[in-house]
């Protein structure tokens, strides 16, 4: 009795082994169920009943007719209801749709990219044609022209050398700025000490 109760606890937690489940099923099937456990009897009865359900004789033929296959084309074994092979083709079909959608998206986005870049390329040409000889007129930054510019170097080593030079130029200029700022600060300090009138911050402009 207690043994059955213990097994039931395990059963609800889904921790029973197949053997233990069989013990439980046998117990409830035997009919001599303890009053306390009677409430579960119906459940096990139901489980038992469901196990009895089986497809009819012509089930396979009907299924195969539905999917448009000759019964002879598929050997009967392994194609019963509940076994995976029947379900598998359905699943594969679903992934097929996903794959098709992905491919479609890739292709369409590629089109988009190609069109975007070719369009901006056109703009560059148009702008270059229209813009020659009229520098200084574009006062509003609204005339934004996107451009795709080709790589100048094919050799990474040469490119690196160019980057190095460019960085140095920037660095040198930046330090010039620092020195001047320091000089100005120094001057500013001196004049603060010398005079007490209005002081305007020295701005570089």
């Amino acid at each position, binding site marked *: 009795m207690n043994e059955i109760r213990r097994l039931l606890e395990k059963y609800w937690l889904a921790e029973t082994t197949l053997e233990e489940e069989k013990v439980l099923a046998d117990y409830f099937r035997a009919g001599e169920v303890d009053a306390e456990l009677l409430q579960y009897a119906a459940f096990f009865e139901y489980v038992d009943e469901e196990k009895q359900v089986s497809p009819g004789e012509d089930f396979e033929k009907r299924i195969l007719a539905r999917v448009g296959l000759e019964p002879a084309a598929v050997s009967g074994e392994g194609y019963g209801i509940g076994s995976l092979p029947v379900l598998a083709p359905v699943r594969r079909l679903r992934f097929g749709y996903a794959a098709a959608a992905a491919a479609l998206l890739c292709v369409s986005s590629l089109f988009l990219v190609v069109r975007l870049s070719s369009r901006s390329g056109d703009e560059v040409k148009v702008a270059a044609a229209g813009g020659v000889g009229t520098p200084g007129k574009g006062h509003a930054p609204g005339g934004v022209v996107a451009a795709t510019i080709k*790589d100048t170097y094919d050799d990474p080593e040469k490119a690196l050398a160019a980057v190095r030079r460019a960085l140095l130029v920037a660095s040198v200029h930046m330090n010039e700025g620092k020195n001047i700022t320091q000089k100005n600060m120094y001057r500013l300090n001196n004049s603060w000490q010398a005079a007490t009138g209005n002081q305007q911050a020295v701005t570089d*402009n």
Partner: protein
Amino acid sequence: MNRSKWIFFFPLLLLGTGVFAQDDAIGKFFGKYVEDSRFTVVSISPKMFRLMSKVNWDTIPSDLKQTVSHLTSLRILSTETTPGVFYKEAMARIDRKEYEELITVRNDKDNVRFMVKEQGDVIHELLMIAVDKDGFTMMSFVGNIDLDKLSRLSSDMGIKGMENLKNIKHK
């Protein structure tokens, strides 16, 4: 679930690489001069920056190495024709909401401005615009830029070869 995410993001990734090429000041405001014969253009794409990792880095100082490894693209546009006019145009064209002025150096000979475009706390683009009587140069560095490191580069190298540097502007 993962699969469907991929289906959504993969085209976005493609789009991202296609559009990136235009995301700097020179591409945006000065694209029209790229094919102009009066201008000399140097452009180094993100792809080329990736290829640089294959170059022999042994002889390259570590500060420089780090700075370069954080860059994704470089563009230089320069001309010797009417530098003053182009300088004025550059100043007018650049969107001040996007580009903040950082340093201006002005002396009797030349005029150099540094502008930065920030994304959060990171300087995403450094734009240098320089003009003197001989020429006008715009330089745009895109990437994650550390100004301290950049300014240290020249002091590390010393003043050696500085004369050559001046010349590359009008290469």
